[in-house]
């Protein structure tokens, strides 16, 4: 219909992808323990539902924040009228301190450099509007969050050029892959404006190693381009490694307050760490004044509700709460991840060893009929329609190798997770592959474990004994 904009008529929103189709199927037949026990179990939604009780008990102890009061006095009027796009100072201060806490207080965040946004969805799009012209490109390592196609490209006109990562080294970013992506963009006549990474990664569930971060900072320095680090999962790190932010690397390389540091931007949100996606709290952190200024004006298009800012500024200013929450959150995520991993193993399925996130990157290549994306889609359909599990196929995340799936574990009860695993195991055992697996399961698991160990060796950086790239 020529009447409407091209944005309406194109499918630049990316919602025709399987990632979203799985959701739609889930909506039609959602699992409920009592009302619909044969319904579809949602494992395609990276939500953190494990720690609401902690927030609820905080609310019970903090009636002022809960009822829009300050020192016993109602501040309803003040909140009702507060629409300053600079955001509430106490909220930005609390956000800055929370971000510091997540990074072990090794780096500092200046509240004045924070721009609030309506979720990281809005934060990422706003950064694109600030950094890229229509037709400019950002390089993203694959696999990446399917929503980026919409958030980074749809209304901005920017392009994404993939940095291909492969299972041969645990999907780590390599120098060769970076250069290849850059050259590919040039071949396509696209100006590269920067690199965007999610750290910890969605969908891999792994934190970037120091080696990768150094590589990225060196790369953007030499090419004079930007680096956006979406650290939305920074508070979900549960491995014994500590989370290394790009801000850590800037500090360690003594690049703070340099031109390079002005080109490094962090995106954050409370949707994953605190499990509050409904409250729409996102943030951009930038050392570049012009970006902060422009992004602040743009935030008018998606400010955070004042009542939400007020509630969360009280919550996050309570340091006793935040330290207890972060610790407990990590504990529960770790235990849940373990449950998923061991459940999958008993079905002869392994995952990329993960140390963060709300999902695992699951290896089902051995269940494919052929090593093709068609086979992956076939397998996915079976899992969605027959096994009734909504999981996300790797192709929807732009993975270059068929057979990988993202499976979420933090958005359901333990019982539901166990049921999902049971269904999957039954499915696997009922297929030819499954029979083969159960016959030689012992051998197979042994070799799969070896593979897992080698993946593990590549990803670990806790001892700083970083192995060579190969």
């Amino acid at each position: 219909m020529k009447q409407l904009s091209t944005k309406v008529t194109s499918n630049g929103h990316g919602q025709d992808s399987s990632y979203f189709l799985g959701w739609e199927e889930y909506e039609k037949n959602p699992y409920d323990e009592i009302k619909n026990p044969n319904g579809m179990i949602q494992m395609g939604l990276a939500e953190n539902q494990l720690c609401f009780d902690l927030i609820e008990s905080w609310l019970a102890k903090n009636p002022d924040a809960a009822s829009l009061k300050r020192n016993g006095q109602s501040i309803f009027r003040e909140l009702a009228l507060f629409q300053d796009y600079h955001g509430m100072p106490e909220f930005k201060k609390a956000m800055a301190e929370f971000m510091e806490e997540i990074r072990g207080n090794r780096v500092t965040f200046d509240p004045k450099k924070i721009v609030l946004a309506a979720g990281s969805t809005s934060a990422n799009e706003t950064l694109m509007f600030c950094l890229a012209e229509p037709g400019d490109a950002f390089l993203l390592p694959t696999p990446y969050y399917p929503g980026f196609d919409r958030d980074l490209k749809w209304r901005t006109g920017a392009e994404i050029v993939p940095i291909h990562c492969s299972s041969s080294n645990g999907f780590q970013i390599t120098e060769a892959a970076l250069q290849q992506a850059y050259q590919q963009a040039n071949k396509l006549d696209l100006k590269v404006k920067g690199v965007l990474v999610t750290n910890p990664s969605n969908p891999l569930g792994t934190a970037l190693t120091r080696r990768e971060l150094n590589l990225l900072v060196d790369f953007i320095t030499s090419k004079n381009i930007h680096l956006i680090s979406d650290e939305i999962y920074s508070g979900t790190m549960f491995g014994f490694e500590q989370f290394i932010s790009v801000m850590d690397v800037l500090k360690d390389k003594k690049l703070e307050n340099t031109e390079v540091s002005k080109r490094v931007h962090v995106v954050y949100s409370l949707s994953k760490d605190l499990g509050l996606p409904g409250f729409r709290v996102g943030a951009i952190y930038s050392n570049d004044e012009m970006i902060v200024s422009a992004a602040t004006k743009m935030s008018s298009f998606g400010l955070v509700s004042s009542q939400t800012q007020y509630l969360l500024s009280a919550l996050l200013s309570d340091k006793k709460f935040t330290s207890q929450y972060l610790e407990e959150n990590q504990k529960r995520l770790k235990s849940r991840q373990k449950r998923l991993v061991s459940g999958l193993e008993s079905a002869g399925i392994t995952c990329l060893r993960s140390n963060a996130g709300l999902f695992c990157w699951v290896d089902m290549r051995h269940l494919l009929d052929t090593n093709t994306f068609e086979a992956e889609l076939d397998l996915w359909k079976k899992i969605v329609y027959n096994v009734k599990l909504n999981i996300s196929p790797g192709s929807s995340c732009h993975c270059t190798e068929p057979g990988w799936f993202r499976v979420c574990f933090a958005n359901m009860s333990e019982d539901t997770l166990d049921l999902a695993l049971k269904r999957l195991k039954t499915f696997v055992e009922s297929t030819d592959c499954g029979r083969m697996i159960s016959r030689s399961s012992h051998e197979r698991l042994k070799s799969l474990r070896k593979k897992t160990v080698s993946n593990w060796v590549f990803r670990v950086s806790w001892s700083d004994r970083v192995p060579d790239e190969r």
Partner: protein
Amino acid sequence: MGSLKKSGGYTGAILSRIATNDQHGENSEYFDGWKSYDKNPFHLSRNPHGIIQMGLAENQLCLDLIKEWIKENPKASVCTPEGVHQFSDIANFQDYHGLKEFRQAIAHFMGKARGGRVTFDPERIVMSGGATGANETIMFCLADPGDVFLVPSPYYAAFDRDLRWRTGVEIVPVHCSSSNNFKLTVEAVEWAYKKATESNKNVKGLLFTNPSNPLGTILDKDTLENLVRFVTKKNIHLVVDEIYAATVFAGENFVSVAEVVKDSEVNADLIHIVYSLSKDMGLPGFRVGIVYSYNDSVVSCARKMSSFGLVSSQTQFMLASMLSDDSFVDNFLMESSKRLGIRHGVFTLGLKKAGINCLISTAGLFVWMDLRHLLRVRNSFESEIELWHIIIDKVKLNVSPGSSFQCTEPGWFRVCFANMDDDTLHVALLRIQDFVSKNSNKTAEKASDNDQVIQNNNAKKQKWKQSNLRLSFRRLYEDGLSSPGIMSPHSPLLRT
């Protein structure tokens, strides 16, 4: 600018044009008034000589009713003991369709705000980050970069940002003039359309605010119907921003475009409404914007785009409860309408006493004040800006000059009256009357001198006027107008 190299050539680090141009419009002089206000904000007791904010179209007259409702309905908050059992479900809820109860409550409220003359379909309610987000979203849906929307002037200053900045859409104004009280006519729209298309512009639609900002006037039914037929004939879109729908003063009639869309001559696929609770309910902080379209593709697309500016689920939940409370809503709409009408009456009466006329208006949170007779040089925008600076610096009122609304005639000012309490309004009126009488005592060239002398001379006159004005307030109080509490002068930056 970033790391722009003087040697020229491409450097990747340069920021986008959008980030570095001033298409956001915030570098205009318009915001000087705000800056002055922020440096020296009026407070009745703490800073009685400070600048009174009259450039902010906020509705503060009925917040007491909402505050009361919230106090009496703790279940509506997911944070109170009564409501916390809902916390996890709501905190987790990010479905861009929005809470069903919220959509239903909004649709219901929108119908009531239009006197129950139309109903709205909750399935067409799409959320956005305030009307700011809604207007930008509808542009992204209807127009491509370089396309044009016709917008009658004077128009809301921030449209330059909301409709154009990131969308690349162009605004072509349809100039309205005082010769017919700034009424929008089909002829004016036709002429603007013709001129634009003759210059090879791709006109995608017409957008206007009704009730109007900054005029406070309501479009009559005939003109509305004719405009709707016009867009149908030309196959272009019509976006009506009805953000001030419930600010219509008691006893006046507002015709929403929703009431004419069922006409058989109308192509409903071309009709879209923008709405918000920021003005009608006085809740700009809660960021509740709505896109309502009769076009299914637009609803679908806008809904996907709403991911960039969803309403906080905490807020959705509270409002779903509040706006489904019929007795609250009915009383609120009635009270609000009444209080706005009274406030408007007091203000315009006070202005008349100072010999200042305003455009006759029946809605909105402001008046369109005629100060053409006070311009040093008639018909000069320089004089308008000069007069405006005098009003800020000497009269200590932040008002908005007509030029910032793209008005083509110098001398008009938008002055807000609903964002302060009665006492502050009273002080504002005194200052205006004072200023006017000062100015009528000498020739225009000496307008900026002798302030002190004039002030002393007028002290007695001031006292007399003061007691007269107080009488009118007292009468109104006796008529049952409840007095809103004293406002703290807290002001967000850069909002209109």
